[in-house]
């Protein structure tokens, strides 16, 4: 056992430089082996971050995204091919299955019919040569735009004669997205980079200048390298990964104080995560959240203006509360933020959920559901009648009855008949005689 543990520790040491919160296996689909050198800086950056890169051609017949029905790689990087598709091993359906299996995809495109042309700016820092724009539908909250095209960008078909003026514009300006991100419900990530050339060494080292800037300036080095790092880090789950360390809920009051004979089906103040509460119980909820930051877990803090919210729900939420963050001091090894709330359960009995749902663009989804029963008041948990002022006349009536009954029994047993009444009776009887 000790040996095995030791081996495990060794294995962990071996992966200490690995960064992704998910896995290290990265499949790079590149058509031309000779094109590989064009991206050498990007490859070395990925390798330095602990990824194990496998280069395969889409034409390779042995190429398969799956091994024994499970995704064979944690991450996939698709570089454009000269042909229209990626071939029978990388059909859209297979890639969708791959994403459903929880793996991440970075798609760099250059072979689209729609191309973005921009005469005015290269977005200041990041150069997107030959960019392909994407238009995101408004319907899905899973899609997010990473970089929008500048205001004067528009799409046109480069296959048409470019000297012709264009009549029909598909999309213009900031409606276009140069880099867009998609995060599936299982938190698998799919990033579309509008320009594969932006990852090339040439553009990592290039100097660009904004048109219209003063002619004396020679230009600025592109931030492509940093951007490629950030984009691949996000796609391959080195950034924006959340972890729930623990979820606890407990009673925050001593409801059984002063009740000698409470029902057995009840949460005691010391219980952690009890299965049952009573309506109007004051409860305390705490969830510990960490965020992965490339190399290690750090306490998670939501962006300004955002809040981690807890719902206490039966079909629909009865409570939806912003949780209060505080450093998690009880479990310092987790390196987490503790989000807490204290609230009174609704006056409705039934099966309820403590439902924590944190879905935000660029963060992995957090969904934690804890089901509890909420019972109504037991018969001995109500206030006694003698503390209810409206009951005093009834209680008085009972005492009057008790004392009147005792008095009646005493009189009936011990009373000596009065003389006058008997004479009256005797006289009446005598009169009839």
């Amino acid at each position, binding site marked *: 056992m000790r040996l095995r543990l030791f081996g495990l520790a060794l294995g962990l040491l071996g992966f200490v430089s690995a960064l992704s919160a998910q896995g290290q296996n990265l499949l790079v689909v590149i058509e031309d082996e000779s094109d590989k050198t064009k991206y050498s800086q990007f490859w070395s950056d990925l390798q330095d971050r602990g990824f194990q890169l496998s280069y395969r051609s889409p034409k390779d017949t042995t190429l398969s995204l799956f091994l024994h029905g499970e995704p064979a790689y944690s991450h996939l990087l698709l570089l454009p091919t000269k042909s229209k598709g990626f071939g029978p091993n990388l059909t859209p359906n297979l890639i969708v299955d791959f994403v459903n299996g929880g793996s991440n995809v970075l798609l760099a495109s250059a072979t689209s019919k729609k191309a973005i*042309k921009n*005469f*005015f700016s*290269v977005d200041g820092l990041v150069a997107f*040569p*030959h960019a392909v724009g994407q238009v995101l539908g408004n*319907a899905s*909250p899973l899609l997010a735009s990473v970089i929008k095209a500048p*205001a*004067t960008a*528009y799409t046109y078909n480069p296959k048409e004669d470019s*000297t012709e*003026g*264009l009549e*029909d*514009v598909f999309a*213009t*300006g*900031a409606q276009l997205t140069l880099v867009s991100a998609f995060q599936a419900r299982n938190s698998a990530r799919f990033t579309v980079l509008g320009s594969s050339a932006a990852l090339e060494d040439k553009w990592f080292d290039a100097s*660009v*200048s904004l*048109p*219209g800037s003063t*002619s004396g300036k020679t230009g600025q080095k592109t931030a492509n390298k940093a951007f490629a790092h950030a984009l691949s880090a996000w796609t391959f789950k080195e950034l924006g990964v959340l972890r729930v360390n623990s979820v606890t809920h407990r009673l925050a009051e001593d409801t059984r104080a002063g009740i000698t004979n409470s029902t057995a089906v009840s949460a005691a103040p010391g219980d952690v995560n009890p299965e049952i509460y009573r309506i109007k119980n004051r409860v305390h909820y705490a969830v510990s959240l960490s965020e992965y930051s490339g190399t290690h877990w750090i306490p998670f803090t939501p962006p300004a203006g*955002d*809040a981690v*919210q807890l*719902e206490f729900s039966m079909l629909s*939420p*009865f*409570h*939806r*509360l*912003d949780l209060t963050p505080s450093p998690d001091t009880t479990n310092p090894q987790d390196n987490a933020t503790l989000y807490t709330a204290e609230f*009174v359960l*609704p*006056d409705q009995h039934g099966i309820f959920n403590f439902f924590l749902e944190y879905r935000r663009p660029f963060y992995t989804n957090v969904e934690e559901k804890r089901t509890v029963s909420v019972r109504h008041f037991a018969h001995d948990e109500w206030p006694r009648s003698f503390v*209810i*002022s*409206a009951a*005093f*006349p009834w209680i*008085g*009536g009972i*005492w*009057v009855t*008790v004392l*009147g009954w*005792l*008095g009646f*029994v*005493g*009189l009936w*047993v*011990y*009373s*000596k*008949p009065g003389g*006058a*009444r008997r004479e009256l009776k005797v006289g009446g009887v005598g009169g009839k005689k």
Partner: protein
Amino acid sequence: MRLLSSLAITGLSLGSAFAASWGFEDATLTVSSKGAGVGSAGVKEKLTPNSPLTSYAVTLPAADTLKIVLTATEGKTGKRPHQPFLTLHDTTTGLEESFPFSLKDSGKGKVEVTQKDLPYQLLTSKSPLKASLVLASFGSSTPYASHAFDLALELDSAAPPATPPASERYTSKPEIHHIFKAEPGSPPKVISFFFTLCVLATLPVLLGAWALLGANVDHFGKAFGAAPVSHGLFMGSVVAMEGVFFMYYISWNLFQMLPVAAVVGTVAYVSGSRALTEVQDRRLAGER
């Protein structure tokens, strides 16, 4: 690649003193309703490349058409650029929409915009839209993009634009705090105390009425003298039964109360029959 090479050339040409640039000539802006003749245009303005029309915001009523006619020029000669746009920009939200001019090879052409062409977000803009003209193409000429005029929209109050349904986004939602039912209340205590006193007052009234009718306990000594155990147990068990009920009210449950009540009840039954025999004896003796 074409973009950056054109950029590079732009940079070079900026260095040199002579550079052609895009611009326009003979630009007129009209706002007219469909049926009206050419002469009866509501608004007619001349646009010049270097001085935007900022003195007032051009108003576009619901049924009318905004029309801009111009000749695009590269340097001095009329030419068609690849990107001739009229861009409407909402300064508060940052949203924008572009409309391409349809130009001839000579650079002459026009664009027409009605309220139907505008998306909902621009139609419902609170402030006037900022309209710019964008003229640019491949090559070394400096592109033109400049604020031309402001456009105010006069919506048809009879037919307001249909509000598109809000699209789902992952954000924090408004807080919900459960609204509890009202706590059970009591009437004013004065009223409760008054009726409590009324109820309690019936006991002295009852005892007084019995006393007036000649009720007494004169046979107490006689009864205890004849059957002390029976009478003692009987009265004791009657009082004890009230005590059992009282304990049931205060703290006992049914299973604690029933056996005690059974014992007390048996005592009351047995001793009661003896005590009542003594009472019967007094009645038969003519003392009742």
